[in-house]
């Protein structure tokens, strides 16, 4: 736990934790609204977003790509809503139509434009590259107070930290609106709460979280963190506040546990190389959810408690 840890593991772990928290927060409400798969849809359209951004600007730069991804996510959300309403199609199918089509368009654009020589590929979008985000100039814990060393901390960390902070602030500020328009939209509307705007804003925030997270950790974690920690937390408690806190705890455990297992697990087993941290984080969050499904005190519906 010395200099090597600070240099190679601290930053990826922090990024993983912030990304997981940024996704798990809106995920709580998505799960309660039975919109869990919006997260799935959003993370699939990130790819076409960054490809279009690259084709338009011609450079691989973070800002335009984030904008492109966010734009694609919002376009996808609007398309899903439009297909749902205009075609009278159930939400799941509308999502399926939208995100697969946009994803296909993204893959096609990628093949058509000669981007093979640049660092922009599907696997990266899916799996991220958490492991490569190392803190080059760190020489130990002391570096945390060294401005020169701090200046070489990967930008991804600051970015995801800001986004996680922003999402936490928004969740806190709109807590009541979110809660009531999720639980009882009719009553919320009668109170004058713009429930549709709240719903849309929630999805946009989820999109921002997904976009900020995918660059560092890839899409798989994004979907897993939207769903697994909140779902596991729901099975542990019947109070919304507790559920949200628990979900943050589970997200953090998954991020740290997943990273450590991916980095050190194979060594313990006698292997040579680390495995995908993103994949392992998703796997650990799934393990947490599985435990909650099997043993969570509130795992069944109130009425069905006796039968289970």
């Amino acid at each position: 736990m010395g200099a090597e840890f600070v240099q190679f593991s601290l930053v990826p772990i922090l990024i993983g934790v912030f990304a997981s928290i940024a996704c798990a927060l809106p995920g709580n409400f998505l799960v309660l609204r039975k919109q869990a798969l919006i997260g799935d849809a959003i993370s699939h359209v990130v790819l076409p977003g960054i490809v279009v951004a690259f084709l338009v600007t011609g450079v691989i730069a973070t800002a335009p790509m984030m904008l492109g991804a966010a734009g694609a996510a919002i376009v996808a959300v609007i398309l899903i809503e439009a297909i749902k309403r205009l075609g009278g199609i159930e939400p799941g199918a509308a999502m399926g139509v939208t995100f697969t089509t946009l994803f296909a368009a993204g893959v096609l654009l990628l093949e058509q434009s000669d981007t093979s020589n640049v660092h922009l590929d599907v696997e990266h979008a899916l799996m991220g590259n958490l492991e490569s985000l190392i803190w080059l100039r760190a020489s130990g814990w002391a570096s945390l107070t060294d401005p020169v060393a701090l200046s070489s901390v990967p930008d991804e960390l600051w970015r995801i930290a800001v986004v996680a902070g922003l999402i936490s602030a928004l969740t806190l500020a709109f807590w009541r609106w979110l809660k009531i328009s999720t639980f009882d939209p009719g009553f919320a509307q009668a109170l004058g709460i713009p429930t549709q705007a709240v719903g849309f804003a929630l999805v946009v925030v989820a999109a921002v979280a997904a976009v900020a997270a995918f660059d560092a950790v890839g899409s798989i974690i994004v979907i897993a963190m939207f769903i697994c920690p909140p779902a596991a937390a729901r099975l542990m408690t019947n109070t919304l506040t507790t559920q949200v806190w628990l979900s943050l705890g589970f997200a953090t455990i998954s991020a740290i546990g997943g990273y450590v297992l991916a980095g050190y697990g194979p060594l313990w087993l006698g292997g040579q190389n680390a495995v995908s941290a993103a994949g392992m984080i998703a796997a650990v969050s799934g393990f947490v959810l599985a435990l909650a499904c099997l043993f969570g005190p509130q795992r069944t519906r109130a009425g069905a408690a006796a039968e289970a």
Partner: protein
Amino acid sequence: MTTTPRPVLVSDTADDTSSAPLAVRGLTVSYGDKPAVFSVDATFVPGSMTAIIGPNGAGKSTMLKAVLGVIPRVSGETTIFGAPLGSERERVAYVPQRASVDWDFPTTALDVVMMGLYRKVGLLGRFRRDDRAQARACLARVGMEDFADRQIGQLSGGQQQRVFLARALAQDADLYVLDEPFAGVDAATERAIIEVLKDLQARGKTVIAVHHDLATVRDYFDHVFLMNVRKIAEGPVDQAFTTDTLHATYGGRLEATHLDQLELVGA
């Protein structure tokens, strides 16, 4: 037809309905291309307790939802105490149909009642000790004080309905709009609810409720509003709740034998 033509273009001059707790003009609401409510006019009397009556699919709930801005309307306008809905929202308490919410939501009975205080404390305002006390008092008024911390999914249907009513009480409104408050509740709950509603009326509040049980209309309400897509009749029970209006509302679905038991005028 020799009357002199007079202009039908009228500005928004006040008329006798201007101070009614709820007034509706030419309200049409449709799902798709089928009107569920067609061109309904209604004026509810201050301090009255009105039952909205009609068969299934007559548009009763739809009308209330459209009036409160929960669903969009095709045409028509509504006023609350003579003003547009937006400025008078805090004077209205709405109790949605029990089936319209997700009872598996992770929240407690007391929490639900506190939602009735959201307008009072605002988006960010903190709940104070007396807000909490007020919410508990509202639960007590419906006989649910011992269930304050129970998760809502663990309550019986009648208890859930009481919690909804307590939330409306917490809003401390002047107009109470209830969508099927007696649907699927036990007899004790029905008594408890009607007691609270009568108490509200005694304190000068106006109560409007969608109601299904024709046999209890006379006991519970003093006004009725009969509708079947359009308005059939409205007024005091003695005048508007008659064999004719019920036939017009329900058509052949109303059994003559039932009518006998209703002590109707003209039966």
